[in-house]
């Protein structure tokens, strides 16, 4: 999907590998149990992301805390059913909602020293490292589309966009990139 976007020395756009994604909605009380079953503690602080392992590789786990009772859990595609089962089991005693959204959205990594400034072509947030430090994850906007931005490292952003809006997003990013070389 990232095709159509011309990488430059200052930034490149990389497709995420096939992934299984879940939305967990649950009160704070369920967080610890979920983390235990998931193999990665779910972030306690809102708008923060946590991860272990290399994305897409076996055992990798991502947890993004995007709403007061909302976490996104992202794992390699093949591990989806197993993770779903483990979480449902662990959360049996807690009222919750666990829903698969693997295909709802697509993921990208945007990296490079110009990445933050490129995102600011369409994203209204302050993306300086002080205001948006590595580890921060939140939904916001890029031009006309909503997206999730997770800063994995100072110059590495993980992005998630709704499937049908992804072509628009990539085209928008490519157009914005003309002003960022």
């Amino acid at each position: 999907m990232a095709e159509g976007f011309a990488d430059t020395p200052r930034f490149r756009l990389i497709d995420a590998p096939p992934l299984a994604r879940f939305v967990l909605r649950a009160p704070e009380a369920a967080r610890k149990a979920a983390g235990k079953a998931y193999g990665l503690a779910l972030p306690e602080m809102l708008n923060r992301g946590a991860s272990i392992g290399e994305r897409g590789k076996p055992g990798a786990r991502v947890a993004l805390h995007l709403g007061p009772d909302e976490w996104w859990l992202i794992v390699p595609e093949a591990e989806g059913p197993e993770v779903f089962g483990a979480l449902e089991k662990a959360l049996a005693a807690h009222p919750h909602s666990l829903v698969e959204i693997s295909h709802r959205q697509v993921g990208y990594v945007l990296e490079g020293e110009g990445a933050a400034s490129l995102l600011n072509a369409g994203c209204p947030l302050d993306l300086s490292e002080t205001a948006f430090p590595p580890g921060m994850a939140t939904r916001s906007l890029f031009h006309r589309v909503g997206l999730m931005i997770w800063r994995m490292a100072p110059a590495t952003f993980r992005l998630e966009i709704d499937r049908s809006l992804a072509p628009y997003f990539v085209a928008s990013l490519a157009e914005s990139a003309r002003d960022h070389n």
Partner: protein
Amino acid sequence: MTGFRMAAGGRIDRSKPLRFTFDGRQMHGHAGDTLASALLANGIHLVGRSFKYHRPRGIVSAGAEEPNALVTIDRGGGRETPNLRATQVELYEGLVARSQNRFPGLRFDIGGINNAFSRFLGAGFYYKTFMGPRFAGGAKLWARLFEPAIRRAAGLGKAPAGPDPDRYSNRFAHCEVLVIGGGEAGLAEALRRSEDPACRVILCDEQAEFGGWMLVEAPERADEMVEALSARPNVTMLRRSQAFGAYAQNFVAIAEQLSDAQALPDPDRPRERLWQVRAGEVVLASGAIERPLVFPDNDRPGILLAGAAETYLRRYGVLPGRKIVVLAACDTAYGAAFALQDAGAEIVAIAETRAAPGAGEIAARALARGIPVLPGTTILGTTGHLRVSGVQLGRIRPDGTAEPSGGFTADTILMSGGWTPSIHLFSQTKGKLRWEEGLGAYVPAAPAPGQTIRVIGAASGEMPAGMRSPSIGALPVAGSPDRVKAFVDFQNDVTARDLRLATREGFRSIEHVKRYTTTGMATDQGKTSNLNTLGIVAAETGRAVPEIGLTTFRAPYTPVTFGLFAGQARGDLFEPVRRTPMHDWAERNGAVFEDVGSWKRAHYFLPRRPVDPAAAGHGAMHDAVKAECRRVREAVGLFDASTLGKIELVGPDAAEFLERAYVNPVRSLGIGRCRYALLLNEAGFIIDDGIIARLAEDRFHLTTTTGGAARVFGMFEDYLQTEWPDLKVWQTSVTEHWAVIAVQGPRAREIIADLVEGIDLSNAAFPHMAVREGRIAGLPCRLFRVSFTGELGYEINIPAGLALPLWEQLAERAAEFGGGPYGTEAMHVLRAEKGYIIVGQDTDGTMTPEDMGLGWAIGKKKPDFIGKRGLMRPDLTASGRKQLVGLVAEDPARVLEEGAQIVADSLAPAGTHALGHVTSAYFSASLGQGIALAVVEDGRNRIGQTLHIPMERETIAVRVVAPLFLDPEGGRLHG
């Protein structure tokens, strides 16, 4: 010195000559010139004609405040830009400039005849005439005769004929301090604040170079300061960047010019960039603008502001004239005079409007230079047509009139009426202003709540004594002031006498005067005229200036390109288009698409997709839809229903929530069962419908309409979070996770049977309105036994990324059975044959379930649901409401028009009450006739009656029938 160009001095690069043309005439300038400085260097003062009287006009200023020197810059190919100020246009090799608003030419302009009739064309003259005698058509005469003539005469430049191919970009930025204005005050502030490396500073200036007035007076110091700032990584310096709008909470919009100064811009790069800056603090260092003086015939080419003349000389190395008279109300004009004298010009005299020059010392210096200084003197008139040639001076008498006191020949007049702080952006933020008498201007007093804005330098009103002058309004004249033309607003041709006329006619508020005379409403937005206007109105109405009010400053500070606001939102990037996973297949297979919400949906499929579907005509669509309907009724059809909104609702209270949200009973719904459900708003009107499917005790899969998906999701979120937060249930949008393939028709089961694993497809095990989870073609799926066609049907939900291969496989199989895809139009026909409504087409936000014949859906025993109380209101329970019915025309082949009105009598004169309207109308291939759905007052009681549809040329008789045309027993559904 060649022409008027000095041999040395200024910021231009004499080693880089540039060619340009003005009205086709080839000329030369240098890198660093503006178009205005280059024209002056070529001895050109006459650059335009005025708006109303078409008077010859010259360059007045050297900046953004320029009222006269508007030109069109033509780069060709849709890149013509009208109304640019020559004072702001940077010169580049090959620049093509044209003057505007003149015919046939600048030197001889037929429109100049208006000048002769000016006594009849005073302020607001058009409100008093052109009404035409009634017998000649009254108002029509205005619209047909006078208005077109006025429209042709008005307007400035010509709009480009073609689309602008240039690009525009956007940046959001954040900083601790935004400094607006890169003059001495702004540079110093930026330097001071950026000493803290954690303090992000953005500094912007509209000009190509930072420095402001220092570029005239102390360029080296400017260079040093700029260099120091450039070395700091926490400073962003934006040149050619006009802060044009200041909004709530320190939010400032800046337009940055990127390529207009380049001879050969890269078409792949943006022309302009919009900066949307959120600052911790805004520091406004926008300086001050010199005021013109209002004296008779003050608008001739060759009359310019003193500061501008000094700028042209010292910054651009151009001598604006050789024989100069100065009219001064403050000291700064002396500096200009001295500099011009040093450059070789003859300063004929300095006329001082003050009885005694401000600091006597400056007058002494002038006298020492041999320049006569004439205190208490004004200008009573000027001569010259295309350029000023002489000046008539007058001595100001104590009673405020003046008497002639001799004259001079001169090719240039410099004027200086004092300096006005540029507080536009401060005023835009609603900051409080204070009138300062000694300055003849408003100055900032206190920022508005929520704004952290500080004004510094000349913009704050802090100016050296020599810049201060209380002089505003019109200067004394000899005789009646109404016999002379002393211009206040040069561009809109508003004179002092126009303003006096307005006050005489009772226009006393400054807003009234402004609107009646149009003063301050030209493209310069009154930058040089507003205070003189206030002065005249104050004098005329005998009030102090603050009593008259101050016109509100509005964004933008200077005009901003539409394209910059639009940014990259154009063409494919205008608004997102959403496509389903099957889109490309549909396109390859002849689909013509329609927009539904933000989605593209296949409307119908043409056997071979023509280049232009519109050209294929209505007949082609009609044939295609007939064939698609036949497929579904006789074999099997495939329909891409992926765009339907889908919500997964999970939690112990999921059933309870749905029970409260929808009109239907939901708690009783069995696991593995589906129910058609209606959603109302609290007013009681239908807003959405869909299917509720129960996957588990605590897990539901809901569908919504395509266009309603986001609205329904948002509404549910509202109730869940704020109305019933105690319910333990959460919703997740899964619209895009699942692609949906509807397989409909008598052969539907056959084509999917051997692909499905884990689900018994028999009628007994999997009846109509059931749902199962299983696998199809090896993929996880949610399989629904539902139908929107009246046929045996399934809706296969599969993960979107895996949907296309399955669709392709099913399409191949369907083809073997004589089936194939169908689009939204066929879907509409098929459902209409069954009387199934489309929310938004058969309903319009004013219909209740009962109106639609869907009263059965309401759970009568439910204590409450969204819209229940609304439905109980008197008008919603009244008799005679519109109800859904079917219509058939007496001529069965006839297809009614959607939206057509329905009346009781075949004679329907204008004003006849409409009983209702046709909501859906199609040709039914299955029935071989036209069918329609309609909403008609008391419709169900009218079944069997004949009603009438008045069309433009005929009236169609229709029979009211039940809204169910096909298979009333529903046998096909359960097949």
